[in-house]
């Protein structure tokens, strides 16, 4: 299994659903794949103290996050039999209802992709130095917990 170079996972702003559709379509030539497991994180319009979250602004320690993501990829590829793996995380403003995280694992048999995606999402949340600032409709904010 060849490992890819650590790609930049960060994109500015929301991840577009039509791009997700295109990324799925781009895998139709890989006819060893039997299953894709996708996780999408979407910004919730949570209500707190009478205010509603209208967006989350993401910042990251980018160099450290990419290095850590590379380690996560290596560990996942050595643990599961994957054909490919793509991860995208937003930076900057993502409005409520928009997508901020896209994890996309593909494998010959479904189990590997399903388990890989779940584990990667958990690792991203616990281990990547990324912070979300919840911005309310009145432009006040609080740091996401």
């Amino acid at each position: 299994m060849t490992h890819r170079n650590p790609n930049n996972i960060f994109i500015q702003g929301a991840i577009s659903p039509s791009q997700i559709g295109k990324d799925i379509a781009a895998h139709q030539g890989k006819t060893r794949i039997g299953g894709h497991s996708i996780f999408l994180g979407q910004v919730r319009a949570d209500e707190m103290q009478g205010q509603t979250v209208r967006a989350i602004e993401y910042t990251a320690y980018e160099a450290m996050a990419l290095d850590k993501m590379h380690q996560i990829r290596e560990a996942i590829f050595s643990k599961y039999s994957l054909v490919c793996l793509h991860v995208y995380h937003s930076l900057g403003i993502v409005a409520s209802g928009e997508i901020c995280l896209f994890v996309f694992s593909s494998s010959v048999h479904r189990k590997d992709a399903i388990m890989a995606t779940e584990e990667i999402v958990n690792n991203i949340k616990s281990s990547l130095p990324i912070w979300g600032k919840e911005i309310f409709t009145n432009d006040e904010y609080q740091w996401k917990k």
Partner: protein
Amino acid sequence: MSVLEVLVFGQLTDSIGKDRIHFSYVQDTELFRKALNESFPGLRDKTFLLAVNQELVLKKKILKPGDTLALLPPFSGG
């Protein structure tokens, strides 16, 4: 002049008012935490990890002049 570069993230940017500061060189991470708390008393009740040159540091670590430290409050990506 021997300095440590310090990157500040997340809610700590509110406590410190900047996302990058410079500190006079100290020998290890425990001395650094002490100096940091003296300069920014508002950090005393904050939870955060230190990274040195992009590596998380959970125990005391010896520092070299020019090291880049980062103050990392709990992650909240995804």
